[in-house]
């Protein structure tokens, strides 16, 4: 049995671009009939250059944007039939920049508690305990409960963002470039954490990244997007060994291998 957690069929998103005061609007198709499916426990990576529509697609899957065509189903239910509160329990985002995704005037404790409040969770007396458990899960010491985001390092902030995403125990987590704003040593900590959490909480990830080494390490399947279209999708090993589409080949050729010998051979 395969549980389809995310199922997108023929998703289209158009943006109207103003050409000037008296001219008509031009239509930019940001996402062009993209179909994807992600089963339980999988990590699907979406790669592509900036502006190819990968973040737009993520926003559609999160229910933050209305698609102009096509259907997105989460756990078998069409997205527009799921209420917003229910949706938030199902799918949560982790964004790129932990410096802008956390409210600077709230303490870490209240940032992580907010999803519980919004959900109208019925047992407020358990909130603090649950926040502490989640903080422990993502490796944040409990003394940070009363601190503010500006007192934390980039890696710790990203851990707060992860804790906030996980406190309601979602089934799907959409990570939009979760480590590209971080240093390499912090990146490895966060990637390790995401991998541990996936096993422990049986999460399904959609990972958006332009770092192919990260994708190779994390993803089970990869979808390549180019100018709004999905041009290739394959198991990670397959794709890295035997890329079919020309753009995928170019992309793989531009990986900079951290090995001076093989790097020099290619030049």
């Amino acid at each position, binding site marked *: 049995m395969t549980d389809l957690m995310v199922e997108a069929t023929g998703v289209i998103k158009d943006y109207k671009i103003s050409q000037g005061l008296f001219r008509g609007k031009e239509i930019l198709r940001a996402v062009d009939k993209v179909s994807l499916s992600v089963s339980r426990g999988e990590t699907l990576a979406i790669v592509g250059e*900036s502006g190819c529509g990968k973040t737009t697609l993520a926003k559609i899957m999160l229910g933050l944007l209305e698609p102009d065509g096509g259907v997105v189903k989460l756990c078998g239910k069409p997205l527009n039939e799921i209420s917003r509160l229910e949706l938030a329990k199902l799918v949560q985002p982790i964004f790129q920049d932990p410096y802008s995704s956390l409210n600077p005037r709230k303490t870490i404790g209240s940032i992580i508690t907010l999803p519980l409040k919004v959900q109208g969770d019925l047992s407020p007396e358990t909130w603090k305990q649950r926040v502490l458990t989640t903080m422990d899960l993502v490796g944040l010491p409990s003394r940070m409960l009363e601190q503010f985001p500006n007192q934390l390092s980039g890696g710790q902030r990203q851990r707060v963002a992860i804790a906030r995403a996980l406190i309601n125990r979602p089934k799907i987590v959409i990570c939009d470039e979760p480590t590209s704003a971080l*240093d*390499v*040593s912090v990146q490895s*900590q966060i990637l390790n954490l995401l991998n541990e959490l996936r096993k422990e909480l049986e999460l399904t990830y959609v990972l958006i990244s332009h770092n192919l*080494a990260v994708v190779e390490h994390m993803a089970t399947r990869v979808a390549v997007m180019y100018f709004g279209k999905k041009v290739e999708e394959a198991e990670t090993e397959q794709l890295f060994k035997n890329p079919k589409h020309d753009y995928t080949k170019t992309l793989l050729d531009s990986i900079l*291998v*951290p090995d001076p010998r093989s790097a020099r051979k290619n030049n």
Partner: protein
Amino acid sequence: MSENVLDVKNLSIEIPVAGGMLRAVDSISLHVEKGETLCIVGESGCGKSLTSLAIMDLLPKKAIRKVEEMTLGEMNILNFSEKQMSDVRGNKMGMIFQEPMSSLNPSFTVENQMLETLSRHRAIVGAEAKALVIQMLEKVGIIPAVKRLRQYPHQLSGGLRQRVMIAMTLLCEPQLIIADEPTTALDVTIQAQILKLMKNLQNDFDVGLIFITHDLGVVANIADRVAVMYAGQIVEEGSVFEIFDNPSHPYTRGLLSCIPVPGKIKRGEPLGSIPGMVPSLVGDFSGCRFSGRWSGDDEQKKNSNINLVAIDNEENAFKVQGSESHFVRFCCNECLEKSYNSKQRKAS
């Protein structure tokens, strides 16, 4: 004997902040040879960008620069006045920054900005200057160049803008180019193109290049020599092969184990990591810069077959035995003891 285009000895930078002095860069020395690429690697806040700004004399006003010796080619630029330095910058010393949109002037065309460089530094104007500009744009792969001359920076893509920046830097045929994360803001495919272009042009122009980056993949591709910076100090320095084959400082080892390499670590297996955080360098910092950052595997690596030879007059600084250009420096005795036993260390 190769000649050095840049020589910096004992550069320190201190910045007054609330709570004391921030010792951002702590007596580092570096040199770049003609036609050589020196990569400075390190994580954010380790002082790599400040080092480059200090060389160009573009530090923020509050920062205090102390340096024993600084020469560019034949010139001793240590005590140059502001006016003298502005004759050097953009002329003998070129700069390429991370975000080309913010280094180009948005209200002038490509042609205007490039012509200005030529008239300012080399007093070339008119048709001759224009021909040079076109020639240089074509060298950096902007073909046809004439079409781009009258465009404004916002009409160019990120990759093209960076190419224009490179062309502009090369116009005055500098001896040294300092590139601070020039490809970080670009897509991977464009990044590969720009790196290749820079490497080729460097060979053509035989210019010294300081390349600042945090991406070890980029380092492996472009560097001849590498300086690894950590918490304001250069902890290890050597040829690119020495650094990648024989990392001798625990920080370099940690950095190399952190990056996912396709085919090296199995999917889902944990990557190596450097635990903890960089210590705050405010005030009279005298403790160990690396405490709390040891990962579990460091102890096992103690028994590696690397031997160190002490360098005279420098505390905790060593040369790796069997190599003339590979140096490693520890912040304190404790760090050293943890990484190498006494048998592995020799007096000079």
